[in-house]
């Protein structure tokens, strides 16, 4: 039945994200929090995260574009992004944030730019996968409602 197939597909997709290391066990905690009283919890968290991360990455780009980089501000933004990534379980993105943090501590603008590039890459990858995930979930919900 289509619903079961969709659910399996979703489960496999999430599992693949786990296997690639894109997500870690924290994400499964978040999935566990979704229940009848909180049906859209995962979607809400993902949306909030994507918006937040996009904003922070824009800020980071802006600050790294200046001649004199304000490493202090950089550090605080990276810290926020790292916190958000850990909360949602975005494992690779969190590691990329750690790299950026290190480069910022070393006061190396080149290192920061490289780290920011990798963060942006990871984020884009993550966000696109999240979009797929959300779409799958919405399909499942729509199918469930119709039944």
């Amino acid at each position, binding site marked *: 039945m289509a619903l079961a197939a969709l659910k399996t597909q979703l489960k496999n997709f999430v599992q693949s994200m786990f296997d690639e290391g894109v997500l870690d*066990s*924290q994400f499964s*905690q*978040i999935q*566990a*929090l979704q*229940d009848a*009283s*909180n049906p859209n*919890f995962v979607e*809400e*968290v993902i949306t*909030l*995260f994507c918006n*937040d991360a996009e904003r922070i990455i824009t800020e980071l780009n802006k600050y790294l574009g200046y001649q004199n980089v304000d490493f202090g501000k950089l*550090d*605080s933004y990276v*810290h*926020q992004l790292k*916190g*958000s990534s*850990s*909360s*949602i*379980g975005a494992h690779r993105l969190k590691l990329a944030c750690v790299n950026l943090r290190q480069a910022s501590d070393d006061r190396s603008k080149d290192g920061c730019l490289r780290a920011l590039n990798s963060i942006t890459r990871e984020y884009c990858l993550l966000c696109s996968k999240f979009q797929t995930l959300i779409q799958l979930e919405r399909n499942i919900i729509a199918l469930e409602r119709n039944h």
Partner: protein
Amino acid sequence: MELNCNCIEPHLPPDDLLMKYQYISDFFIALAYFSIPLELIYFVKKSAVFPYRWVLVQFGAFIVLCGATHLINLWTFTIHSRTVAMVMTTAKVLTAVVSCATALMLVHIIPDLLSVKTRELFLKNKAAELDREMGLIRTQEETGRHVRMLTHEIRSTLDRHTILKTTLVELGRTLGLEECALWMPTRTGLELQLSYTLRQQNPVGYTVPIHLPVINQVFSSSRAVKISPNCPLARLRPAGKYMPGEVVAVRVPLLHLTNFQINDWPELSTKRYALMVLMLPSDSARQWHVHELELVEVVADQVAVALSHAAILEESMRARDLLMEQNVALDLARREAETAIRARNDFLAVMNHEMRTPMHAIIALSSLLQETELTPEQRLMVETILKSSNLLATLINDVLDLSRLEDGSLQLDVATFNLYAVFREVLNLIKPIPSVKKLHVSLNLAPDLPEFAIGDDKRLMQTILNVVGNAVKFSKEGSISITAFVAKPESLRDPRAPEFFPVPSDNHFYLRVQVKDSGSGISPQDIPKLFTKFAQNQAPTRNSGGSGLGLAICKRFVNLMDGHIWIESEGLGKGCTAIFIVKLGIPERWNESKIPFMPKASTNHGQTAFPGLKVLVMDENGVSRMVTKGLLVHLGCDVTMVSSIEECLRVVSHEHKVVLMDVCVPGMDGYEIAVRIHEKFPKRHERPLIVALTGNTDKVTKENCMRVGMDGVILKPVSLDKMRSVLSDLLEHRVLFEAI
């Protein structure tokens, strides 16, 4: 005669020779009289300070008038008119007046003029005297300058050879000496050895015995003493053809460090002196002047001081070098000791782990096996395996514990436990062995012994087990009795342990346990050795296979529990009694119902574990805030979210039972909230529990949280189960510092 011209005739005719001479004399007199005032005026003008101007003026006037008189007299030699006579008379009258005045004036001033001469003589004498004194002062000042310079030269170095050499050189230069030498006492103190001379480069060791009279004479006086050039001290130069110059010798005290007391000044009663000999040039007729002798004495004193400084410096340098060596040695020893300790700890840790793992497997599998279907024989076998492996595990623990006890790192796990159950368990564990040995074991628990107590139940059980086990091990027959009761304060003091001061208080009691056996006993002189680790009694009666650790460990545990353990025995073959007293806490009444002697009951896995619990969550990060909220909502809490410190402080009220705050923002902001919340709710029961969420696992964060008065710390990310267990622990105990 023409009398009608009213002229006056001179007395004598004008052509008379006498008249002529008078005429010429008058003329010259007048000339002189006019020129003298001019000269006087000239001289007065030249000397500005001449004090008697008025007198000179008078004198001048007098002379001028005299001159005028004589001049006018010239006209009276011929016939002259009355006018001339009138003028003459006027001049004479004036002259008379002035000359009388001058005469009178002279009476006044002649004594002054005379005394001027006296004063001049007096001043001349004075000037000569001052000159002499000035000469003396100059010499003294010069001497002083020499001394200063010499002292400066001598004191500018701390090297003893340089000091002495410089002294001789400078003295030689200042005083123009022919030879200057220093004689130092030898090590034996019986001779003086020539150590330094001015002119000779390498003085070969001339020595003179120290008890010569001339030397005694010099040593006994602090002044420079003139000595004969023929004495052995002064025979330094090859004898010249001419008279040798005068020789002076002065003593130089060699001060020792011990001469300098704090409160006394150094007394020169030191026995060691050096001798300085100074010789004036041979062919000059120079003599030693007093100021030169003084110079020499002062220099000798300065040299003494400089030498003592040099000696002190040498001494302190030596001491410092010694200290440095010792430091290095100590450092090395410490590092070696640390390495040894680390090596031992590593070994213990590894061995422990290696031993524990298989033990763990055996125990776990045996207990699992116990749960399955077994025949009674099999069950008995499995139980025995389990018990034996538990005992073996205990032994492994012993070894680890002992090393931790010795490091001081062992801490008791204090909790409430059932005291009676502990004794029962010990009895159960030990029962097989006495039943085999046909020993009778009895347990007596006093009726006033509380059922529950606060302490470390495992370690207490270990102690009791060890003591009872020893009793069983070393008894071949008879009975063993275990008694436990609450110790009364008077009976607590044991005269053998004077440092044991039990202080009874309201929430503690002292448990006294006596284990009496009728076994082989111990001779009294062996009793102190019992508690030494690895020391076993070699007496054949006690051929045990134990490791000798047991009692040592028990003693340490008992000490940790603020207690005391000892053994009494009346001798070999008379059995012995082991007694220990430990301090246990008395639980409050209402805790009795919740005692988990069973393992902590796992909290219910229901969805709403904490219905309606009001929680305040503070987190600046939106995503993690949402996740935390999700967790708490899932557990049924009523969550309020704030995103900043000010908002948190505004919103927090006594309805909130828990405040979860994120403190991993770089900086200390989060901690301030805790302080402010403490201020806002001074009463403990109104205040919400404050828990920090952090990504940092280090000790510093934990210490900071404890310092500001937080009730707990949780490491992010938090799983659902962790949050559930954390909240339940928190609410039950009101404190949680383990969830890291």
